[in-house]
C-alpha cells in the first residue's frame, strides 16, 4: 500500500484563483447574458423614446436621455442579488465553500468580478443611451456633445451607478440569502422608499439612491436653490458617487460579516 502524502503544488489558493472561479460561474449562466443585454438595450430604447419626445432646448438633455438607465439599474441590482442568493437556493454554496473556504476572500472575489462585469456593461449602456437618445432628438434640438461641460462625467458616473447598485444587490443577497426577499428590499430601498421619503422629507431625499443617480451623478446642470424653501440641496456628483459607494460597501461589509458567522 502506498500512502499518498498529497501532491498539491507549493503555495496556496489566492484571490486570483477564486476570482477566476467566480468569472467562469458568472459567464456560464445564460441568465447573466440575457440580463446584461436587456439592461443595455433597454437603456438605449428608453433614451430614444425620451429623445423623440424632448421639446425643450433648455433642458438638461444629457440628464434626460440618461434617465433611461433606471430600469436597467434595477435589472443589474437583481442580477447582483442572484449572484449571491443563487448559491443558496441551488446548493452551489456548498461546492463553492468546499473550493474556497476562506469566506471573506470568496466574497471579495465575487464582488470584484461582478463589479468589473457590471461596470463594463454599465458604461456601455450609459454611452449607448447617450448616443441613441442624442440621435433621436427632433424639433431642431441638436444632441449634446461629449466635449460640453459635465457631459462626459455624467455619462461615466451614470455607468458607474450600475456597478454600485449591482454591488448593493450582491451585499443584500449575502445578508438576506433569499432571492425574493432580497429583491424586495433592493427595490424598496432604491426606488420605492426613495419616492415616498423623497416626497415627504426633502432633507433626506438628496441621500436616496434614485435621486443621487438622477440628480447628482447624471446631471450636467446642477439645480440651484436660490433661497426657495421647498428646494432639495442635491449632492455634488462626486459626493453622490461616494455616498452610493458607501451604501454598497456597508451592505457588502455586513454581508461578509454574516457570511463568516453563519453556517452555510
Amino acid at each position, binding site marked *: 500500500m502506498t500512502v499518498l502524502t498529497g501532491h498539491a503544488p507549493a503555495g496556496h489558493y489566492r484571490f486570483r484563483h477564486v476570482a477566476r472561479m467566480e468569472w467562469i460561474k458568472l459567464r456560464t449562466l445564460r441568465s447573466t447574458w440575457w440580463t446584461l443585454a436587456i439592461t443595455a438595450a433597454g437603456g438605449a430604447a428608453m433614451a430614444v423614446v425620451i429623445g423623440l419626445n424632448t421639446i425643450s432646448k433648455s433642458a438638461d438633455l444629457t440628464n434626460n436621455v440618461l434617465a433611461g438607465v433606471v430600469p436597467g439599474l434595477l435589472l443589474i441590482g437583481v442580477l447582483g442579488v442572484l449572484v449571491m442568493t443563487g448559491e443558496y437556493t441551488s446548493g452551489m454554496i456548498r461546492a463553492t465553500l*468546499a473550493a474556497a*473556504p476562506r469566506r471573506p476572500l470568496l466574497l471579495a472575489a465575487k464582488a470584484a468580478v461582478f463589479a468589473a462585469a457590471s461596470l463594463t456593461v454599465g458604461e456601455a449602456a450609459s454611452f449607448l443611451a447617450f448616443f441613441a437618445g442624442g440621435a433621436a432628438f427632433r424639433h431642431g434640438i441638436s444632441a449634446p456633445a461629449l466635449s460640453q461641460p459635465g457631459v462626459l462625467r455624467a455619462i461615466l458616473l451614470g455607468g458607474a451607478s450600475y456597478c454600485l447598485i449591482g454591488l448593493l444587490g450582491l451585499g443584500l443577497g449575502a445578508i438576506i440569502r433569499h432571492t425574493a426577499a432580497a429583491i424586495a428590499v433592493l427595490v424598496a430601498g432604491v426606488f420605492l422608499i426613495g419616492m415616498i421619503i423623497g416626497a415627504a422629507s426633502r432633507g433626506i431625499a438628496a441621500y436616496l439612491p434614485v435621486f443621487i443617480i438622477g440628480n447628482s451623478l447624471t446631471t450636467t446642470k446642477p439645480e440651484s436653490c436660490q433661497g426657495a424653501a421647498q428646494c432639495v440641496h442635491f449632492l455634488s456628483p462626486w459626493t453622490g458617487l461616494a455616498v452610493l459607494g458607501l451604501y454598497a460597501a456597508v451592505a457588502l461589509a455586513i454581508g461578509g460579516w454574516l457570511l463568516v458567522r453563519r453556517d452555510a
Partner: protein
Amino acid sequence: MIEVRDLTKRYGSTLAVDALSFDLRPGMVTGFLGPNGSGKSTTMRLIMGLDKPDAGQARIGGRRYRNLRWPLREAGALLEAKAFHPGRSAHAHLDALAASNGIDRRRVDEVLDLVGLAGAARRRAGKFSLGMAQRLGIAAALLGDPPVLLLDEPVNGLDPAGIHWIRDLLKSLAGQGRVVFVSSHLISEIALLAEHLVVIGQGRLLADTSVAELSAGAASLEDAFLHLTGASTDYRGRDWVAQRKEGSS
C-alpha cells in the same frame, strides 16, 4: 489523516453532535453508520467547515478545513444534497471549481469520463436525474485527486450498475492509500464496502471498530448494528408483527 476531537454542534435546543471523537486512517474505506437523524450529515458538514462547531474541532492532515492550502486537492467531498447551479452545465460547473484550486482543465474531462457523464457534460445540470446529479457530485469530489474523500450517502439515486461501479471505485481509491469516509444508513451496502466502522447515535460515538469485530458476536452486521443503536434511535416505526400478535391475543 482526519482527526475529529470532541466535536459538538447544537441547533437551538437539539444536540446534533455530542463530543464526537474519532480518527480516520488512510488505505481503507471507513463506513459511517447511524440511524436517521443521528448526526452523520452534520458531522460531515462540520469536518468540511460548512457549519461551525460549538466545541471541539476536526482536522484534515493537521489543519482545519478552512486553513487548507488547496482545499480541493487535499479533500474531496460529496454531501447529501445537490451542490450545483441547475442552469450551468456539468462541464462549466467543474471548470469553475478547477479554476479555484489551480487544477489543470484537462482534469475536468478526465473526471467527467470517469463518472460516465462525458456525453451529458454540456447539458444543463438542472435536467439531470438524481443518479446523474450524484455522479456529478462524485466528479467534483475527485476533481483535485485528493488523498481524502468524504461521501455522504453516495449510493443515493444510483441504479444497481451504478452502485456496483461506485463500490469498486471507492475500494480502489482506498487501495491507493487514500482516506475514504462513506456515510450510509444501508448496512448491507456498508458491509460490502467498508473495513472499518464509525457508528453514532444521537450524535454520540457508539463504536469505532472493524467490520469483522463488530459482526463477530452477532448473527449479522445488521443485528449487531440494531443492537448497538437500539437505545439511541429517534425515529422508529411501530413493530408491526408484534402489534398484530398483541391484537389477536
